[in-house]
């Protein structure tokens, strides 16, 4: 995977969209469905949108969210309620309008020769895995999912993964579902048992780093989706840099998906505590 070439850059769209539905789908997590014909039709797995969550006189920066799924004109976003922005999002309802910039960023690379993929996600790291799992399954790729969450009520997208994956293993920190412990404990057996061609990872950065090391030890290429605080979301402000072996890259245009072996984890951002 090479980083997005400026000349091959996709045009970002600014689209006024309306909310079709907005429901609580897990503890502290909502699923908002937007009528967003232009973005929904061009988005690829792993890309994100920059949402204007509040309008009017109040100044609030946009918030970045992965596209969880896209069907026709509809864009689905899975979000965890954390602060002002996501609280505002949780209060919007059917018929409300907002504006979206997207599709943004460099998403998951799907090699043509892929026959077996392992998806590892923790918490809301499941969000950018939705479209990926669906697309891989549609291409006939065998998908295994290792999913972690703090507790069973906070597991998301279980139905989607159950449909798309041949194998779906769960770990919870408190043991209320699946393996009692971290999702990283599920990875080594899956690497050994399934011999995947690629590992895709999203979740807290510490977890991504561990899985990247596990994949590397097994000799399997690994892609990670990194989060950074974002200002513009389109590559202009340099808020979102990631240190890589190729120098500093912008998570919003060169990422959020990077080859794990490109990332210099030593200098990686300390992930915010949710």
């Amino acid at each position, binding site marked *: 995977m090479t980083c997005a070439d*400026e000349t091959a850059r996709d*045009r*970002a*769209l*600014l689209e006024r969209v309306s909310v079709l539905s907005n429901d609580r789908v897990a503890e502290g997590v909502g699923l908002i469905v937007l009528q967003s014909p232009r973005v929904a039709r061009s988005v690829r797995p792993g890309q994100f949108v920059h949402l*204007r969550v509040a309008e009017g006189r*109040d*100044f*609030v*920066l*946009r918030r970045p969210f992965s596209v969880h799924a896209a069907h026709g004109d509809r864009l689905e976003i899975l979000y965890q309620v954390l602060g002002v922005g996501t609280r505002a999002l949780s209060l919007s309802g059917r018929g409300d309008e907002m*504006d979206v*910039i997207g599709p943004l960023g460099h998403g998951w690379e799907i090699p043509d020769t892929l026959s077996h993929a392992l998806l590892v996600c923790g918490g809301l790291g499941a969000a950018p895995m939705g479209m990926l799992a669906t697309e891989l399954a549609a291409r006939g790729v065998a998908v295994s999912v290792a999913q972690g969450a703090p507790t069973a009520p906070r597991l998301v997208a279980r139905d989607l993964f159950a449909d798309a994956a041949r194998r779906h293993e769960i770990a919870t920190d408190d043991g209320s579902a699946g393996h009692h412990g971290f999702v990283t404990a599920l990875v080594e057996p899956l690497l050994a048992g399934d011999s995947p061609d690629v590992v895709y990872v999203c979740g807290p950065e510490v977890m991504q780093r561990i899985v990247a090391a596990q994949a590397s030890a097994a000799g399997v290429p690994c892609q990670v989706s990194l989060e*950074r*605080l*974002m*200002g*513009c*979301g*389109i*590559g*202009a*402000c*340099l*808020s*979102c*840099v990631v240190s890589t072996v190729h120098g*500093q890259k912008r998570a919003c*245009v060169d990422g959020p998906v990077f080859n794990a072996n490109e990332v210099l984890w030593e*200098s990686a*951002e300390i992930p915010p*505590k949710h």
Partner: protein
Amino acid sequence: MNQTVNMKVRLGSLELRNPVLTASGTFAAGREYSDFIDLSTLGAVVTKGVSLHPWAGNASPRIAETASGMLNSIGLQNPGVEAFCAGDLLWLATQDVPVIVNVSGHSVEEYVAVARRLESEPTVSALEVNISCPNVDEGGMAFGTSCPAAAEVTRAVRAVTSKPLIVKLSPNVTDITEIARAVEAEGADAVSLINTLLGMAIDTRTFRPKLARAVGGLSGPAIKPVAVRMVWQVASAVQIPVVGMGGIMTADDAVEFMLAGATAVAVGTANFVDPTTTSSVAQGLEAFCRERSIQSVAELTGAVRL
């Protein structure tokens, strides 16, 4: 009602088709924003700060949202003037918009070297010398907070450039008019203000500063009243034109800066919220004048009634 408004303004010898510029560091070189707006609708594109050698910038996190604004500590990350000329500047040459290059340095020699390198570039319409960045350890704001240092940088750059020279001032001073007078005396053609206000925010759950560098520059609507006040003070103290900025989100905000004495204005942080802001501010400014039968936008400059 179809009366046309003369939107042209001048910064020294530089004539601009309208008074709306981009604020350095919030617009890169404009390429990303050209997905959303027609750059030829702007008075000029002001680039991200350019230094002699590549600068890596500061550690992450580099931004934090605050009430009605944000803190940043990007730290003037840029690839250096040579890479800038071979990349962004070549692209800008294909665009129908004047280009003002924001010049940064750790030392007087570095500012001079960058200005000298840009002298032979016809695409560069003017220089904006940044003596006000709060996000670098050496240079940057240090030059903008002392009259002798501000004068020295201006004199040295003036000696090597024939292009219009704008000096960007820091609000982190006791009396901004002294600095403005000092750079005017050394041959600056215009001053731009304000750069960001030094600020800090702390996460009360982790007890850590929200920025890795602890402190950073505050921008956005929160700083607008401070910026308008400083523009008013500086415009009253110097003869050269003033470029006003700080929290502009709407055409009405831009009018406020012009009434306070600004000849042109720049839009910064608002670009992050709505990437079409620059263009809509320019349109709105024209509509404002048309609705009031103001024939030339320049009539707004300093028109505050006291």
